[in-house]
């Protein structure tokens, strides 16, 4: 391998500024105007941060994070978070190990697959990390910090373990993933408190995760149904998708919480969280179905024909040839859909659930903070939480796209 070593050509800062910011009278004027706007905005933010009293966040941090969850049962959330951190680390390690193995075989080094350098994780998850640091700075005891540090440690440990795990035993790691997920759920559910006490940002995260997990397979089935040659199956799929897409989510949530009871037998009284989760799943499945349908249409018919000619059964053609290519093509649209759902979970505040948005208005109505215009503190905090999650998702999706793009025609 011949390597060319050349000094990186980087124009000095002054030259860069001159070329990009001051290249003409109009450009210079724009630079000055926007520079002034940015400086003014930056100063406003600094003044806001310096002059504001964040006591309302400090006092209510637990409310924002876990809502009305019983404080003596908080350890359950910590344990569940640890289990999920470990799971996340294992997934990351498995993905990296697979990418490294493939790079060895094909000779193609996949950029962004194994990360660049030891601290690439920080660069990847910095929005979320920033949010964590802000939250921890608002805590009054050491416990949340310890929980977080241990969680990060478990994630790193899981990553390390999965990278070094012998390849021939890898299937046990894959088996461990759903077990960890179920264990996390079990720890939460075994309290006997039920979902009805879940709340805060934790509820938003749960509704997003569980909603996606449930809606995704359902959505794929609907998309396949919509392309079915059987008129009945196709009719049901089209009817379902078009009815659900014609209804606002808030209507479905209201119906789930207030109208569903009239249609259920009287001994069946699902909790509000269950009802909301069902409504979200039904709603999201219709949108995911349309995204997947777009991907299915992007797979050329020659792919199906080649698979048919080899004698593969229709189901195997769908599962092994069409769906993998279709889902890959839908990543950008799918992530947009996920982010949109993540933000839409705040609508549950409108049907009386105590999510993070509801927590903020509850905090604002507390006697100590009432009528002081403290929404200027709490709402930006809620916004920050969603921004950190959404932006991280969007960045990770871009990375995934880049990685899966390798080997494409």
């Amino acid at each position, binding site marked *: 391998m011949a390597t060319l070593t050349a000094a990186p050509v980087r124009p000095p800062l002054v030259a860069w500024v001159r070329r990009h910011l001051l290249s003409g009278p109009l450009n210079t004027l724009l630079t000055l105007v926007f520079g002034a706007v940015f400086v003014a905005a930056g100063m406003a933010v600094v003044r806001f941060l310096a002059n504001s009293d964040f006591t309302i966040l400090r006092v209510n941090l637990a409310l924002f994070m876990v809502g009305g969850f019983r404080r003596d049962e908080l350890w359950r959330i910590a344990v569940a978070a640890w289990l999920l951190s470990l799971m996340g680390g294992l997934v990351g390690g498995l993905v990296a190990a697979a990418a490294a193995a493939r790079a060895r*075989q094909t000779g193609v080094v996949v950029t962004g697959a194994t990360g660049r350098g030891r601290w690439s994780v920080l660069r990847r998850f910095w929005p979320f990390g920033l949010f964590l640091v802000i939250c921890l700075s608002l805590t009054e005891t050491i416990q949340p910090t310890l929980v977080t540090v241990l969680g990060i440690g478990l994630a790193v440990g899981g990553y390390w373990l999965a990278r070094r795990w012998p390849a021939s035993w890898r299937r046990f790691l894959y088996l461990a993933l759903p077990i960890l997920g179920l264990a996390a759920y079990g720890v939460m559910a075994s309290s006997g408190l039920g979902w009805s006490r879940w709340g805060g940002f934790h509820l938003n995260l749960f509704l997003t995760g569980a909603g996606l997990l449930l809606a995704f397979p359902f959505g794929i089935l609907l998309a396949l149904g919509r392309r079915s040659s059987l008129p009945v199956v196709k009719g049901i799929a089209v009817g379902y998708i078009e009815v659900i897409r014609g209804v606002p989510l808030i209507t479905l949530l209201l119906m789930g919480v207030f109208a569903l009871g009239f249609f259920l037998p009287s001994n069946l009284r699902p909790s509000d969280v269950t009802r909301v989760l069902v409504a979200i799943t039904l709603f999201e499945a219709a949108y995911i179905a349309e995204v997947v349908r777009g991907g299915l249409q992007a797979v050329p018919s020659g792919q199906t024909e080649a698979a048919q*000619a*080899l*004698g*593969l059964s229709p189901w195997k053609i769908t599962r092994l040839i069409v769906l993998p290519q279709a889902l890959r093509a839908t990543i950008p649209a799918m992530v947009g859909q996920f982010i949109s759902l993540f933000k839409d979970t705040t609508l549950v505040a409108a049907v009386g659930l105590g999510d993070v948005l509801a927590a903020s208005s509850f905090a604002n109505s507390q006697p100590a903070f009432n009528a002081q215009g403290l929404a200027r503190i709490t709402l930006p905090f809620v916004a920050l939480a969603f921004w950190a999650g959404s932006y991280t998702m969007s960045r990770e999706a871009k990375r995934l796209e880049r990685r899966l793009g390798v080997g494409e*025609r």
Partner: protein
Amino acid sequence: MISSDFTDATRTKNEPMIVLEHVDKFFGSFQALQDITMSVGRQEVVVVIGPSGSGKSTLIRCINRLEKHDRGRVVVDGIELTDDLRKIQEVRRETGMVFQQFNLFPHLSVLDNVTLAPRQVRRMPRDQAEELGKAMLARVRIPEQAHKYPGQLSGGQQQRVAIARSLAMQPKVMLFDEPTSALDPEMIKEVLEAMEELATSGMTMIVVTHEMGFARAVADRVVFMAEGQIVEVGSPEHFFSSPQEPRTKLFLSQIL
């Protein structure tokens, strides 16, 4: 056992591999195939030529049921193609097909492309399938590309992988649908060589192509089609030196 061996043997000797009887095929009101009757013997290589839109591709796509014929009979290795899905699958397992656009699976490595069908359709264990797959890649002379992805290969290499992918199912018949038409000129030769080797090894083949040199050198019979009908059939010598039909003469004068 003995009786089945006996019938197998007689079938092998007497019955042609592919029989088409009075096959019609319509796309809407357009008749793509009109009263096609032909048979292809075992180990025979038939080259189908004709102007574009003459129904050549439709003809071979009816043989593995990528197109459903509307009238007549299509019989492959004694199995008649009907709406019975099991019969269709049986025929497809024994019939390889190579497409103009290669149609490799871009999300699978070359080796996975080749081993997918043996593993999924023949239920072959992975290591056995990979051994077979590597042998097939060696046969089309690209064993070193096994772990690459189709997108990393040249057109000629991709088409040879497509041939290897079909061969891995150990088919009794190979159908080629203009296998070199999408290739750059310098890559046509390597694909034709692979096909020639296959013909020499005794594979039953139907090849739709515009490569007259290949037809002359490799074909046992040449079929000329126009407007959905078989116009003329003959040995290459007969066909290229003394064609009988005016339509054939016109076509040959245009391309040679």
